[in-house]
């Protein structure tokens, strides 16, 4: 077991996979010699050269489209998009080609592509560098959506993502990149569709998305001082979603809060709440509650950011409110 940052752990996973399979190559702006804006490919260019660490022009639609074609033709590309806000230019081809080619060809074409990069609200990043957008990909059939919240999971899930024959959105919250945590030695793979119980508890369940897992754990620690036992669940992959672990928790606690910094409408929380209602209605002692970011683009001034996304204290309050429900 080693202590590593989230980004270093992910990169270690990528390096291992690239060593294992020569069909894997990475495409993106600045991911070649420079090693990536977030150090996602640091050191790999020297090992594998420009064909496998391909610097691109500012052509997100184009290079994503090229990677779709490459994935359909026997290669295993990794699109490193940096900020998901840039990737939006490629959404058309992702929805119409990437997610559909397997199905359209009756499974004869595979789509072993990983689309990875940063998401999330960070201080003063403002409207074009704070995007989340993952509900789009949860919604459309064909995509896998992976959002680790710990370094160990970052490595294990990136490796699984690269080995998958399905198109995977591997989304890294920018506030987690420098987070340090334990990473197992040796081969370490984390499967899709298996949530982690980040903290056990029996009074109330919290499901956090990515960076919100960390906030929820802090809130749980605060409430523990008042004798309130909070169970924190990290879904790790949003598609496939491990609803069974959530249901099992609700069976014990009877109360569920979903915390997601992304906008509320049609978001992760609404999907989880619906599934819990469908299969765990009789376990509920109170309505499912959600805590989301405000429904507006991310602002610049710190004053405007005050209430923008859930914080540890707003999560604590939401849990108190839920327990009083």
């Amino acid at each position, binding site marked *: 077991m080693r202590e590593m940052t989230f980004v270093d752990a992910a990169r270690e996973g990528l390096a291992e996979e690239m060593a294992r399979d020569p069909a894997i190559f990475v495409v993106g702006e600045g991911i070649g010699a420079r090693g990536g804006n977030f150090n996602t490919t640091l050191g790999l260019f020297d090992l594998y050269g420009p064909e496998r660490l391909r610097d691109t022009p500012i052509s997100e639609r184009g290079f994503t489209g090229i990677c779709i074609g490459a994935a359909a033709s026997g290669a295993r590309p990794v699109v490193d998009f940096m900020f998901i806000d840039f990737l939006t230019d490629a959404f058309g081809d992702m929805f119409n080609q990437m997610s559909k080619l397997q199905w359209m060809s009756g499974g004869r074409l595979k789509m072993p592509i990983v689309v990875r990069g940063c998401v999330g609200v960070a201080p003063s990043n403002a409207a074009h560098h704070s995007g989340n957008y993952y509900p789009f990909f949860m919604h459309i059939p064909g995509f896998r959506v992976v959002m680790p919240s710990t370094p160990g999971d970052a490595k294990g899930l990136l490796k699984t993502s690269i080995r998958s024959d399905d198109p995977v959105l591997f989304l890294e919250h920018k506030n987690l990149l420098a987070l340090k945590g334990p990473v197992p030695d040796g081969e370490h793979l984390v499967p899709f569709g298996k949530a982690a119980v980040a903290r056990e508890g029996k009074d109330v369940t919290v499901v956090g998305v990515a960076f919100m897992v960390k906030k929820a754990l802090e809130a749980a620690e605060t409430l523990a001082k008042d004798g309130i036992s909070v169970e924190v669940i990290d879904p790790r992959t949003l598609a496939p979603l491990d609803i069974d672990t959530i249901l099992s928790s609700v069976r014990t606690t*009877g109360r569920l809060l979903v915390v997601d910094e992304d906008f509320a409408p049609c978001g992760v929380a609404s999907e989880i709440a619906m599934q819990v209602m469908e299969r765990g*209605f*009789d*376990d*509920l*002692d*109170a309505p499912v509650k959600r805590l989301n970011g405000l429904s507006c683009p991310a602002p610049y001034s710190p004053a405007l950011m005050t209430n923008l996304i859930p914080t540890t204290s707003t999560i604590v309050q939401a849990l108190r409110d839920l327990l*009083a*429900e």
Partner: protein
Amino acid sequence: MAFEVVMPRLGWNMEQGAVVGWRKKDGDSVTAGEILFEVESDKAVQEVEALESGLLRIPPQSPPLGTQVPVGTLLAWLVKPGEDMPSSDAAALAVAPAAAGMAPAAKTSGSASSLPAAPSAGAHAAETPHPPTGKRIRISPRARRAASQLGVDWTLLSGSGSSGRILERDVQQAAAAGTGAPATAARAVRAHEAVTAAGTPSLDVLPISSVRRLTAERMSAGAHTTAPVTLTTEADATDLVRLRSQLKGEGARPAPSYNDLLTKLAADALVDHPELNARFEGDSIVQSASVNVAIAVDTERGLLAPVVRDVQSKSLRQVARETADLIERARGGRIRPEELRGGTFTITNLGMYEIDAFTPIINLPECAILGVGRIVAKQVVTDAEAGTVAIRHMVVLSLTFDHRLVDGAPAARFLQRIKRNIEMPYLWLAGS
């Protein structure tokens, strides 16, 4: 808003008065200051002026002329044009047949925990969770499930949830308090101590259990909503007694009890007298195709009446098995709420207490109840002409029926049939 016109206090000592005349008619326009009606108190007749303007509406339940009523009694309304008279007294609704059998969520002052809840006592538990005022009781799905599992009647609880919702913990507390009733005892002790401490002579002040409360309400409803008439007759139960001891001696267990025999023979009679196997549902009278007989059982917690369903299609032995199980579980506090509901006829037997005749109260929303007295060996005349007598086992039957639903003659014919069935068991033993 409508203005209440009430019996005024016209003198320092006046406590009641009677309206002896209205100066305005229902629907008339009234101006404040005009003379509205005349009141006779123990002194003289006085004129009373209207204190507001409006349209006079005299409701149907306004005291008839000349009736003495307490000061403050509602006499009429003064409403704005187009405004409706406020609806009739909510209290009346509480004993309406449709709402009978329901108890409002128990109100406690302040504390979140509720009265110890027990399986529905007396007659039927609530069919739907709507208390008389029509307010909805909120309960979480989880709490509802817990209530079902723990045998708690959640309609009697108040909820500690933010919207007044009944939560799992409310049900759990109620169940914990209910079994063994420690909370009741504890409260009784505390109340006792409180009264003693206040310096008054110590009395045993027992809080009302939910069973008692429910029984109180049901009985009140049964006595006052219906038009109860009790018919009595004496039946020769000699052959029934013989039948019973034969069955007992024959060895199969459980041996059918007298109540089992009565249940079967009553069901047989009800099949041919369906108007007695009926109930009010809203505005209609519904005759039931099944005969579901409720049997009054005295338990530690109070009076319960578990129901045997479809007696008409079950054998005597089957009925015996079922009643044995129901009674055992009722006494053990393990009866389920649905087993206390849905009866169409009740049998109550006080014979073991040496009672002959009595006036049982109808178990709403049923139509009739059969009270059974003790079986006594008596000397009876077998042939008046010949002057012969014999020792026979006689039993008094008291049938209370609801005259709103059934008239005397059909009820009497039904009782006659019951008498016949007792006297000639072979009539119903053979089945149809």
